[in-house]
């Protein structure tokens, strides 16, 4: 099932420099939208202490975890040095104004 692409929502429903949480079989996934309307999807869990990344501040292609400020790269899921750690990425794309997600 998780092999399939699933429609999430229209792009407009994710705020620029923000995120929406998506609950599905793969657990909680954060779908981010950058200032330039790129979208990225990561597990909604910071590798540091498990904070919900969807609630963090988005800037460039990065998000700062709301709990302790660990910065995660949206395109790779990796923490920005000197922080360390990595969170799982999911595939996501925009098709005719709709955001599609392929978890796993």
């Amino acid at each position, binding site marked *: 099932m998780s092999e399939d692409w699933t429609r999430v929502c229209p792009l407009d429903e994710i705020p620029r420099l923000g995120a929406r949480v998506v609950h599905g079989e793969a657990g909680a996934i954060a779908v981010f939208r950058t200032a330039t309307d790129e979208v990225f999807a990561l597990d909604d869990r910071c590798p540091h202490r498990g904070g919900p990344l969807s609630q963090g*501040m988005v800037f460039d292609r990065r998000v700062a975890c709301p*709990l302790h400020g660990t910065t995660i790269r949206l395109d790779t899921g990796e923490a920005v040095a000197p922080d360390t750690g990595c969170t799982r990425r999911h595939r996501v794309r925009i098709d005719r104004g709709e955001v599609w997600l392929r978890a796993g």
Partner: protein
Amino acid sequence: MDQPRLVVVGNGMAGCRTLEELLAIAPDLYRITVFGAEPHGNYNRIQLSPVLAGETTLDAIMLNDLGWYARHGIELHAGRRIVAIDRRRRRVVADDGSEAPYDRLLLATGAQPILLPVPGHDLPGVLAYRTIADTQAMIDAAAPGRRAVVVGGGLLGLEAAHGLRARGMEVSVVHLAPWLMERQLDRDAAALLQRSLESRGLRFEIGRRTAALRAGADGRVAALQFDDGTELAAELVVMAVGIRPDTELARAGGLHCERGIVVDDTMQTYDPRIYAVGECVQHRGATYGLVAPLFEQARVAANHLGEFGSARYRGSTTSTKLKVTGIDVFSAGDFGLDAEAAEATEARDEIVVADRAGGVYKKLVLQDDKLVGAVMVGETADSAWYLQLLREGQSVAGMRDALRRGQPPAADAGHQGRRCAAAIPDGFEVCGCNGVTKGTIVRAIKEQGLFTLDDVRRHTKASASCGSCSGLVEQILASVVGGAYAPQDPATKPLCGCTDYTHEEVRRAIRDNELVSVGAVMRFCEWRSADGCPTCRPALNFYVRCAWPRESRDDPRSRHVNERMHANIQKDGSFSVVPRIAGGVTSPAQLRRIAEVAEKYAVPAVKITGGQRIDLLGVRGEDLPRVWADLGMGSGFAYGKALRTVKTCVGSEWCRFGVQDSTALGVALENALDRMAVPHKVKLAVSGCPRNCAEAGIKDVGIVGVDSGWEIYVGGNGGIKTEVAQFLVKVGSAEEATEHVAAFLQLYREQARYLERTAHWLARVGLASVKPLLDDADQRRALAARLRDALAVEVDPWLQRLPETLAAAPNAGDYAPIVLHPRRPRDPEGAPDERRLDAGLPA
């Protein structure tokens, strides 16, 4: 390929730091070539003394290894000296005849050690102390029982002497001036330092002139001869009498030089294609040899090389905080050493505290009610405080007792009250928030080559959370980095890494140019990053809202989750809900309603807070709008940079001691100031008599009722930094009290930097600078009116986000997770149910 070419002459700390700064802001702008006279990558020159003393190794002090240059595509010519600049053809010429063309040239040639031109100064066994090669030569020559003479009793000389002593040599220090470190210390401080060093086995020849160095039978140096003909036997002589800027290359190339290569505030030389940084530079008449000024220059030069064109170097206030062979020494400002200062002594005044047997000495020099100089030996824990008083030039009238005793004994929470870095063992937990020990900090400083408090914060997280251990971390940094450490001047510190402008400069730009959005500020001030960062965006949002409350709109994406959700995020991602209970006065009906909500939403924990209200902990984000609707109460802002609570005692209405109605005033103040946005959280207290049961002495604003009226205290703090509030004014009525409090808080809103509590703001600007504005009735009224204006446009954020109004809220989607599989979830605890969908997803 038309990528312009940048050539850097000088592969030391200033040149490489400039490159690092440049690569961070404009990584692909230049093709970069670096020439260094020494055959190494860039190393930490400051750490040569620990290498000499055998405390660390050469490998450990490399800052940029050869791989770093390769990774950034930089062509490095290590060990190749540039001997000429051909400015007409824009080429530099190396000592092997090879040439390199440039479009921009950066000179970072550093300094040369001064060798006394006495007979025999070129004998084998006579060394300077500047480079890895010098250090290695000293290590090779050192052997237990052999005799060494160090000429020069400044910092470098004393470090060399200590290092050689640590290698078992018999060491004498010859110093021409009448006391050691005569430019940093006064006579008494130097005497104390000398005694401490003598007790560690060093010998001193003070006030003696070196006439010649004499060779022995083997042709190597054998003795140092004084001008009175007496001799000191020595198998090794180290010259450490000072350095001078290395301007030879620049001079030969026709660049204007005085003592150093003359640069303007953009670090540009008289040739617009050529920049210069570091010890070789003379800026506004001053030359610098400490790390912090060099790094500041590097940042400015990189800004201009990177074609941003906005940074200015304005010179640095230097202080010296150093560890001379394990003895803490601090000196800053002017303490009456030169003739000019001596003439001014009439107007001067000194505070001297000395415990000679205990090895502790402190002298503070005052002029016109200001601190102008400070010298400390043995105990330097308060140096940051003195340096701040000195730099800010604030009035210290009435602070004589405090100056003598040192920084008020405010207990910074979280590190057992320890204030002296040197005495702390490696395993001691310095940062109680992030569990970072002294050993971890020291290791990171050495291994990662860290020089600033910000560096240490980023790499270790020490002092990165509450910041109460910042002073301690800075001391550790100073003791590890050693003689060249100088803290960054907070007055010129940029708001964040996205800009070179300070908080004050950005706020002025916002006011003067009517910038009404975060984006407008970033564009106008030429922010380096498109979206800013989590440090600057919340600050800019506050500054814009504060300056233009009616014209601007709040940017929820520039707020921390708590202020965007209007609830306090907990470690498990759930939220806490604290409704406003003004003055802590509630009713049975209100309590019943809170209890019902807690049961209805299965709230896992209910707690009475320290601010006399009730906290519902563990509420799910998507439940918040319905919880608020069911409560029917306003937000308590327990999550925000806002008015938190006004704590009250019961006061004259019930208490047999009460002389004023503290509860009524507290409730009125809390309602009047509700929804106020401030640089950091603000807590008030009102007590009905001087027994002060509301603990007004440790609040941002504390009010104490007396029989004839109210006393107002400001700038107290009971948290990170226990700080006793200072008396501001006494007034006769509750109305007057309210006006004074409003004016004070508006001034705090307008003057304090984002995330600066009232205590820290007042410590920075001084109560003396604030009081006249508040004493003046017109100014006070104008301030209070501006606050009223700002509050008038704020609406209760919970009312704005009830289920029926949520769709119109600027961040409605934050409360509505998207559910992909609306069938019954397997995990009933963490997974969504259909209720979440109706929480207001925009149609």
